[in-house]
C-alpha cells in the first residue's frame, strides 16, 4: 500500500483543509495535526520582565531554508515516522518561509491513521521535534529593538 506523503517548503499560506484532504484515505479515521504560529508576545517565565508583567515583543519572523535539502530531510522524517509507527497512513510536513507576522501559522505536521490509538499523536509530536533538529530552516526575529537570528542547539549525528 502506497500511503500519501507530502513534504514542502513554501512561501504560500498553509491550507490545512487541503493538506488534510490529501492525506485522508477511505480507511482513515483519525488525524493528529500540529501547527505552530508566530508568537507576538513572549512571557519568559522566571525573568524580571515576566514578573513585571511585561512581554518580549516580536514584530515578525523571517524564515529561510536550504530548500532542496530541507525537503529531502522532511521526507527522511516521514520515513522515520513510518518506521516507528506502522499504523500511520498519510503524512504531511509543510514549512512556510518568508516574512511571517504574529498569529500566522508557520509549520504544519499532520499524520493520519485508522484509529486514534495507533500512535498517531506521538507520530505528529515526533515529526515536529525532528523537523526542529535536522531540517535546514532558520528564522530571524525582528523586534522593536532590532533583529536577531534564532539558533537551535541540536548537532546532527552521522547518518542523520
Amino acid at each position, binding site marked *: 500500500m502506497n500511503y500519501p506523503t507530502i513534504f514542502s517548503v513554501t512561501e504560500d499560506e498553509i491550507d490545512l483543509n487541503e493538506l488534510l484532504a490529501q492525506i485522508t484515505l477511505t480507511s482513515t479515521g483519525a488525524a493528529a495535526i500540529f501547527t505552530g504560529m508566530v508568537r507576538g508576545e513572549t512571557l519568559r517565565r522566571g525573568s524580571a520582565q515576566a514578573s513585571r508583567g511585561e512581554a518580549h515583543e516580536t514584530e515578525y519572523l523571517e524564515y529561510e531554508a536550504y530548500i532542496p535539502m530541507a525537503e*529531502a530531510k522532511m521526507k527522511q522524517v516521514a520515513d522515520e515516522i513510518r518506521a516507528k509507527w506502522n499504523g500511520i497512513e498519510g503524512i504531511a510536513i509543510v514549512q512556510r518561509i518568508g516574512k511571517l507576522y504574529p498569529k500566522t501559522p508557520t509549520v504544519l505536521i499532520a499524520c493520519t491513521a485508522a484509529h486514534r490509538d495507533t500512535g498517531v499523536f506521538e507520530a505528529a509530536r515526533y515529526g515536529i521535534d525532528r523537523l526542529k533538529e535536522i*531540517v535546514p*530552516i532558520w*528564522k530571524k526575529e525582528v523586534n522593536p529593538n532590532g533583529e536577531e537570528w534564532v539558533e537551535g542547539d541540536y*548537532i546532527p549525528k552521522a547518518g542523520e
Partner: protein
Amino acid sequence: MNRIKLLFFATLRDRAGTKSLELEVPENMTVQGLKGKLAQEYPNLSESMKSVLITINREYAFDEAVIPPGAEMAMFPPVSGG
C-alpha cells in the same frame, strides 16, 4: 584541484557577505581542511567555524569527510525551523 560550490545560510551568509562561493580545493581535502582554509581566507568566518554545521551533497558531513569533486556544500548554524 576539485571545483566545488559552497552555500551559506543564516548567520553564516551574513558573515560571509555572500550566498555562495565557487571554490577550487585540493583533491582529498577534508571538511576540516576546508574549515581551516576558510578561516584563514575569510577572517569574518573564523569564529563561526567552531560551531558550524556542514553538508556535502545535502547530507550532514563531519570533519574527517573527504570532499568529492563537484560537491555542493553548505555551511550554516544549528537549525531553527518550526
